[in-house]
């Protein structure tokens, strides 16, 4: 109970600071700050279209956030979410386009498996060759992004498309839209289910217990007879799979085809989401919404006012730093708590 209360305070604090930073940046860069600020803050909530887009933008973040949570809980650092998402989605899309007998489920399964295998590969490298998964996952991910780009530029490129993208998948396997004309699609239910399942997995199952114990002290896990290697491997497997799934659902819900650079840093933002959520799967939802909200806010205000999309990047970076300085935030919250004598 206490943890939750405390989390809420830290979350609110983070949000407020993000907004203050955003306002300062807007005041300095915009010729008409009040207009820009109105679109920035209220834009995402002002109509169904923007609101739906904000929600749909949070879906892949929820998956990458969950992916990061699972890896972090087991004490492994999966920094390769971006590559896992990208590469998994590529093959999921490939199957969706080229197999006559495809289904939504099959595409998702392929994307999940490919992402999961890459995650597991990093786990294997860690276990067999003692390569730190932090480095291996990051480097493998970098390489995979370039490989994916190659495929999108050449063999899989739709010659009719004006940009590096594959052909469109069949309309029939796409998720149905919920709030047209916005992008919001029924994939959001899968995201919420995934959150719920991860929550159950982490808190109520023996596997979740093994993950928690291994992540908090792997010497203790080994001592207690938990097969630490197996836990690491399966956590990275699941983590990579979640990332791949997130990208695939975005393609099947929003884009309809795989476009080069369709992920606006979902992977890295997923890590930030997990950090804000303090590794609690439930909190991933508000954290992902916050990120998506900021992204939407800048997009809208760049259309409606004179704010450049770079602002969004600056803002996200600011939040990233803020969370890294989480201790500071915690400290301030605690201090207040003491003064108020709670």
């Amino acid at each position, binding site marked *: 109970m206490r943890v939750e209360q405390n989390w809420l305070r830290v979350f609110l604090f983070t949000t407020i600071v993000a907004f203050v930073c955003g306002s300062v940046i807007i005041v300095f860069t915009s010729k008409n700050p009040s207009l820009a600020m109105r679109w920035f803050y209220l834009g995402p909530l002002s109509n169904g279209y923007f609101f739906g887009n904000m929600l749909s933008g949070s879906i892949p973040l929820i998956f990458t956030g969950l992916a990061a949570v699972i890896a972090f809980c087991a004490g492994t650092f999966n920094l390769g979410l971006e590559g896992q998402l990208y590469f998994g989605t590529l093959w999921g899309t490939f199957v969706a386009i080229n197999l006559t007998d495809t289904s939504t489920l099959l595409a998702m399964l392929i994307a999940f498996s490919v992402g999961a295998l890459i995650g597991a590969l990093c786990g294997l490298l860690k276990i067999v060759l003692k390569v730190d998964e932090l480095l291996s996952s990051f480097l493998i991910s970098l390489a995979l992004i370039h490989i994916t780009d190659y495929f999108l530029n050449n063999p899989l490129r739709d010659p009719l498309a004006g940009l590096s993208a594959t052909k469109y998948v069949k309309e029939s396997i796409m998720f149905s839209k919920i709030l047209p004309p916005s992008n919001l699609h029924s994939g959001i239910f899968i995201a919420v289910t995934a959150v719920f399942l991860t929550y159950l997995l982490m808190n*109520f199952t023996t596997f979740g217990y093994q993950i928690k114990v291994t992540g908090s002290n792997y010497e203790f896990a*080994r001592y207690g007879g938990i097969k630490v290697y197996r836990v690491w491997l399966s956590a990275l497997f699941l983590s990579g799979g979640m990332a791949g799934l997130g990208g695939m659902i975005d393609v099947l819900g929003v884009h309809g085809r795989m476009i080069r650079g369709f992920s606006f840093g979902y992977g890295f933002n997923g890590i930030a989401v997990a950090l804000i959520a303090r590794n609690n799967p439930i909190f991933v939802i508000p954290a992902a919404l916050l990120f998506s909200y900021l992204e939407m806010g800048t997009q809208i205000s760049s259309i409606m006012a004179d704010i450049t999309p770079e602002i969004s990047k600056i803002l996200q970076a600011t939040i990233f730093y803020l969370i890294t300085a989480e201790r500071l935030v915690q400290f301030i919250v605690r201090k207040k708590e003491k003064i108020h004598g709670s």
Partner: protein
Amino acid sequence: MFLVSEMSPHIEMREIYKTFPISHTIALKGANLCVERGTIHALLGENGAGKTTLMKILCGLERMDSGKIFLKAKQVSIRNHRDALKYGIAMVHQNLNLIEDFTALENIILQKMPPKYLLFFDSTKAKQMINNVMEQNGIFVDLQKKAADLPVAERQKVEILRVLYLGAEILIFDEPTSYLNELESEQFFKVMKKLKESGKTIIFITHNAQDALAVSDKITILRNGVTVYSSKGSRPSLSELTLMMAGETEIVRKQFTGYGSKKVLQVENLVFKSERQIVGPISFEIKEGEILGLIGFNSSGAVELTEAIAGMRKTLNGKITFHGKDITEKDMAERRKLGVGYIPQKKTQVGLSTKLPVAENLIINKYKELSCLGWLKYKEIGEWSNKLIEEFEIKVFSPWQPVETLSGGNMQRVVIAREVRSMPRLLIACDPTSGLDLRSVNFVHKKFLKLCEEGSSILMYSSDLDEILKICDRILIMSKGKLVAQYEKDPSLTKNKLIEAILSNESRAELA
């Protein structure tokens, strides 16, 4: 003027109160402490009496709710660790926490590095400064060795040098002897005296009244968060002290009952690598219902032997047979399944996950039984935990409170409760009672004896020779990676005999 400042206490803590909001425990209810300059002051008390908490407050690691602290008769407020250091107060903790991969030197200077060109760190200067500190206080360690390679006694010295290097004038030791053996304790007391000679003030937390009497100038006793005694002129007797700590002094002693002839564990020519040496070949066996004691210095490989048998350490050669099954290649999980329990020496690093709740620490060897098709049965986990908490008198507010909020002794009880209660056929115990007060020690010994009556066997390493003499049936002595002597239990066996046996096999030079 000089006289006054000499007479007035160096530190005075008055009416200290402290409540922990998370667990709603009142750890201190008006504790007083008065320490004079240049003395060794013992702070005595049972587990959970509030000793560590009181000292953490003095070091700025915890904040008190109310109370006053005077330093040289001036009231001071100590808000954090840095404030305390400014006044020259520093603490050597109950669980030595050095960074294993760093050398002794790096561990010492970690907190304050002498800079070079404002950016780089000046290792020659650092070495020089530490050499000075070592000279001044007469404490020496090998600065180039990695912390992982140092025996516990040396690690402790590193920790002492670290706080001296930071400029500590008042040193607080939290149960320093709990992880040292008899001879190392003697050495440590000498170190303490040296520190005192070089003008430092020392506060020494312990639950051992004997130690307190042996080395300290003054004694303060805490019970349930209040000061119940602080020594004035005459020195109290041992029995008076233990009475004031509220410990019963009933002695548990194992009667020779004639254990079964069935072999529980057989170790044949076991060879394995420890951080310092190759240990082995070692052969011995344990019979059903037997308590086998294992003693030796930290360099002897005795602790590592227990780890190898428990399955935490890879073996190079030899064979371990448990109830007729070859378990040499089996991992920890399989050994546990066969009925091996293990109380490790490093209780907090290996035996617990301190961030997790007590309940989750209590079920690590049982969680599969407490689950159904992969789902944890929380109700049963709670019931099981409450049962253990009650039976082993673990002081907690709730089974879901993190282990890190327990007192040192209670953390240890969590480990003991879990391992004893799993009814192992062989319990491997490493310093099982090192952080416990007299009453709890007796309690644990009774539990051990009961296990044996039910046909289990125990392999116990202990740095406390009294404990070994009290409850072991047979004693093995290790030195430099080899078994060197064996004693059957008989009434004529004394502590001195054991110490001699250890020493005659260990070159005395190594001790100095």
